[in-house]
């Protein structure tokens, strides 16, 4: 462990966030990505092994796209960290699978993660608010899910954008049950005061809302917006993204463009957002990247970037992953379109298809 070097890299990562918030040009992405890769190769033996296996000499790296990506499954099997467990500040965990393997992402200094999350969240969800607003979270509270990175991020948003500190009336899902009564009361208060609301919601909670409200409406104050994130994870029926958005817009009496999807994962420290709230040309399904993270569609076999317009799996270079893995290999399918900012998210790669009676990995993991 080299705390000075880590702290220095955190400072360089935060410089990206500072520059973004000031509207200035970002520092050199490739330079920091390669420096992080060198640091991680020095202090994470697994990453050093991966570099050797890929024939990559960290000291010779000059481009972010050449940094070997750590598959997200590695977070389930071992500690992906450059520092001793004793100095861990927070550990986020993925939701479980049927085989019981949960990925863990340990952080030595979560302030870098929080600064990045707040800056980009504010930019795509709340930049037009001239004062704090009522914020509700249709998801479990940090007390109920203390190792959820989403819960941690939502708590940060409540503190940063909310008119009141997080309270029992902020978190409206308990035991997968939506507290519609409290939600209704919060909305009534906001309507009476003419305040727009920020609703931070998991997809499964939104489906529970649809099912509870039915053909009725649940009108939000003008100017309100909804951040929708995560999958259904067997906690609700599955609803297609378009259908969910259309129904939510009807129920909440808001424009569909005010329903903004967020894409993130426990193994990352950065998030990505649909730009529909502030960019009239933006489409749903296309996500903006912060200047400190790049999503590169790669060929699933060669791991080489695919040509623009072609679908690949997402290799994500995240400069906020200072002490874990700067490059992550996901199983999500993405595409970059010519002349378009950001990337399209096309769902999870299905993995090797099941054939005959040989069980597929997805079946074993309960994610088929």
């Amino acid at each position, binding site marked *: 462990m080299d705390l000075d070097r880590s702290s220095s890299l955190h400072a360089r990562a935060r410089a990206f966030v500072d520059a973004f918030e000031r509207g200035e040009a970002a520092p050199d992405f490739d330079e920091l990505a390669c420096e992080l890769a060198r640091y991680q190769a020095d202090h994470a033996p*697994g*990453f050093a*092994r*991966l570099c050797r*296996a890929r024939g990559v000499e960290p000291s010779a790296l000059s481009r972010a796209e050449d940094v*070997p*990506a*750590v*598959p997200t*499954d*590695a977070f*389930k*099997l*071992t500690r*992906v960290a450059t520092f001793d467990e004793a100095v861990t500040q927070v550990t986020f965990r993925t939701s479980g699978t*049927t*085989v*019981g*393997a*949960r990925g863990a992402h340990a952080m030595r200094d979560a302030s870098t993660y929080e600064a990045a999350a707040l800056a980009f969240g504010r930019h795509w969800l709340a930049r037009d608010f001239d004062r704090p607003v009522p914020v509700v979270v249709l998801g479990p509270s940090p007390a109920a899910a203390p190792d959820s990175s989403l819960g941690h991020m939502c708590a940060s948003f409540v503190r940063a954008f909310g008119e009141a500190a997080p309270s029992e009336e902020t978190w409206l899902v308990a035991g997968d049950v939506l507290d519609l009564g409290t939600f209704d009361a919060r909305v009534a208060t906001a309507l009476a005061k003419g305040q727009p609301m920020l609703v931070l919601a998991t997809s499964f909670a939104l489906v529970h809302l649809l099912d509870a409200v039915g053909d009725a409406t649940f009108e939000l104050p003008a100017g309100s917006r909804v951040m929708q994130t995560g999958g259904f994870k067997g906690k609700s029926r599955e609803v297609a993204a378009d259908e969910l958005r259309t129904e939510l817009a009807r129920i909440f009496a808001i424009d569909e463009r005010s329903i903004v999807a967020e894409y993130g994962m426990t193994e990352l420290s950065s998030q990505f957002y649909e730009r529909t709230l502030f960019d009239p040309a933006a489409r749903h399904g296309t996500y903006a990247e912060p200047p400190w993270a790049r999503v590169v569609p790669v060929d*699933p*076999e060669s*791991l080489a970037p695919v040509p623009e317009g072609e679908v690949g799996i997402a290799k994500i270079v995240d400069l906020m992953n200072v002490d874990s893995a700067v490059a992550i*290999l996901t*199983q999500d399918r993405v595409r970059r379109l010519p002349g378009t900012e950001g990337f399209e998210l096309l769902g999870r790669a299905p*993995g*090797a*298809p*099941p*054939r*005959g*009676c*040989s*069980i*597929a*990995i997805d*079946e*074993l*993991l309960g994610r*088929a």
Partner: protein
Amino acid sequence: MERSVETRIAEVRAVALAARAVVDRRDELTAAIVESTGLSAAGVELALTRHLELDASDAELRRLVAQAGDASRVAVILSANVFVGALRAVAIARAASADVVVRPSRRDPTFARALVEAASDPAIRLDEGLDVARVEEGEIHVYGHDATIADIRARLRPNVRLVGHGSGMGVAWITRGADLAVSARGLAEDVVAFDQRGCLSPRIALVEEGTTRTSSRADAFAEALHGELERFGIEIPRGPLPAEERAASDRYVATMTYACRALVGTQHAIGIAPPGAPMVPCPAYRHVHVAACTTEDDALALLEPLARSIVAFGSDDEASARRLAPKWARVSALGRMQRPRLDGPVDLRGGAA
């Protein structure tokens, strides 16, 4: 007319004899089976000569008949990977009924067609266009992926019973007393058969270490297995790896390289898990996930989340294996996991509905 047990045994034995006739003319069939299954020619030869149950005893056939039950009619829907599985499927159907119709897999019709032809039994016929929704009575025996079974279940008429034989995998248990070289040789045989694409194919090897959670024996076992699989790669080459399987293999190898260690062969890969890590399953096509455990209890805890998927359990110590294996799993010696007796279905989890 009610058929006696002895009659049924004789009828099943006739099916096994037909299979022997098919093996005898394998030179005519191998190219087509290679084409349809994706196995190498040597892999097809291995399957036909080592993994087809041709010498069942009367006692085994008696057990098969007892388990088969009784049906007015049985429609058999076959899967492709373990193409010789058609023998067991047809044998069970014939034991159950005097009216059997077989729908071969579209991906591998060759062996099933040859078997039905060789049987020359008026009670068994092929129907390659069989529509399960039009089956009016009796049972449908489906061999294949769970999604296929679910799809067929949804289309059945109400008075038709479905018996599903779904997807699964095998686990190897290498005890503290095992000779690692011998166990590795046996497990390699089980992995190589059908390119590890059957529901009995071992995908995980648990190695008992001793009282401390190290991985020295697991490492040594993995090295021995690596050598055996390399040797098999020359003798019995793996069939071509589809693109998505190559991607799954690369991802698994990268994961294990980061997490602990991966041994990558010409046609196989072995991942060695860090001590105490949860199970992360590996792909098929000659991949083995090797994990160390301290005791039987430790192994049980590691396997518990996967138990429902475990169809076969191989070990150097079958008594120890029986204490660990789910009650429905077939327990055998290493090297025999892919050669179950012809005494009933290979998948004993029970799939009737």
